[in-house]
């Protein structure tokens, strides 16, 4: 299993999440859906390490990462607003995690070029991120999130900010990622948008798993 969540619990204020348990195989595509306030974002932040679990375990690729800080977790996260760094170019945004890992210049260039080709953003490499459209921003953010090859990629509402036409393009991009055997968690409030993508689905309600299929 690529991801094992075991009896995971968290509480903030009067809201309690879990205990939650589920698994996801390598290359799997898990959809986590539910209404606002169901705990989707909390669960996503717990898996990414942005919050510390109160109880339970998060095992990624057979390693217990429950208390690993986010920078050491093999988890990529696509933020809903993409969180691109506005002071860096498209190239530098994608290269950011590779430079943190102190990869050689050639390796960085080659990886960024490969990702730019995969996401069809070759012509945008030297653009300011502030000049990109919503769809372009998303593809840059996806390229950046998988640049260092995380074991699990979490997508926070990846289609909600896009209009109908761009949404179809984005779905194709996500299909391409799924076909490349990337393990993906897709967090959404709209279950319909993951039809044809998800291999597994969890519906959350008031902090608990309402259904798992």
């Amino acid at each position, binding site marked *: 299993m690529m991801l094992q969540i075991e009896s995971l619990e968290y509480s903030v204020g009067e809201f309690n999440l879990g205990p939650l348990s589920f698994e996801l195989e390598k290359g799997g595509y898990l959809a986590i859906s539910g209404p606002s306030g169901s705990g989707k974002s909390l669960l996503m932040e717990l898996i990414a390490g942005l919050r510390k679990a109160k109880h339970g375990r998060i095992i990624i690729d057979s390693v217990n990462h429950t208390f690993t800080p986010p*920078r050491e*977790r093999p988890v990529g996260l696509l933020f809903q607003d993409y969180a691109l760094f506005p002071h860096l170019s498209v190239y530098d945004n994608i290269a950011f995690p590779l430079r*943190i890992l102190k990869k050689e210049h050639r390796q960085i260039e080659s990886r960024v070029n490969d990702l730019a080709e995969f996401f069809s953003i070759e012509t945008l490499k030297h653009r300011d991120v502030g000049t990109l459209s919503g769809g372009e921003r998303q593809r840059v953010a996806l390229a950046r999130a998988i640049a260092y090859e995380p074991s699990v990629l979490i997508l926070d509402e990846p289609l909600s900010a896009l209009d109908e036409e761009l949404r179809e393009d984005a779905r194709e991009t996500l299909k391409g990622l799924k076909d490349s055997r990337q393990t993906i968690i897709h967090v959404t409030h709209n279950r319909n948008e993951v039809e044809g993508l998800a291999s597994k689905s969890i519906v959350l309600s008031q902090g608990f798993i309402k259904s798992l299929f």
Partner: protein
Amino acid sequence: MRFNNSFNLTYILFTLLGGTILIFLIAPLLGLFFSLKAPGFFATIHDSDVSNSIYRTLLISALVTLVASLFALPLAYILARKKFPLKGLIEAIIDLPIVIPHSAAGIALLGFISRDSLLGSLASSVGLNLVGSSAAIGMAMAFVSVPFLINSARDGFAAVPVRLEQAAETLGASRYQVFTQISLPLAKRSVISGLVLMFARGMSEFGAVVIVAYHPMTTPVLIFDRFNSYGLDYARPVAAIFIAVTLIIFIFLRIYQKR
């Protein structure tokens, strides 16, 4: 129509009121330059005491700003990002030098660095006398001006979206790398603005500096000394030259800041 009329009247009134305060700010400075007498002005330009004091004032203020930033920026970042007990008290302490009389700040600093104090006796044991030294001038400048840097940088860091820092963390960056590669570059405008404000406030300081070090003279102290010893005609050219130098520096810094 009625709305437009009332807006225009308000606008005219505000322009008149705002214009009055602008005249209040500009008139004394213009008066200073117009009342200069050529022989005295040119003699002052060639006066080495004046040029040395300007050089000393600018250099000490610049050095103090750079050194203080090493301590002030981390504090500003913590204040922008963390909640902790007594945070309000700490913020009030930071603002204290802005609200207390600067002569009182000078007296407090004098007690802190005099030979009877711990710091003063330590310096004295290695042959240094802090009182009346450039170091004392720097400490007085820093004491009254560092709140401007801390407050400006804190506001700049607070305006950086936490999401961007979290994104950098999930991409493998340590907290230090997040600070140096994301937070600091994104807060650059506020940080530079704070540095400029601190530099400006430091070099114009008189009250605290004159108490801890009358000599070597900074330009504000020299202006006071010329006025006190020889009168307005001797103080005026020094003041005009110092204002002109600082204006040139700030126009230059402002252009750099905008870029």
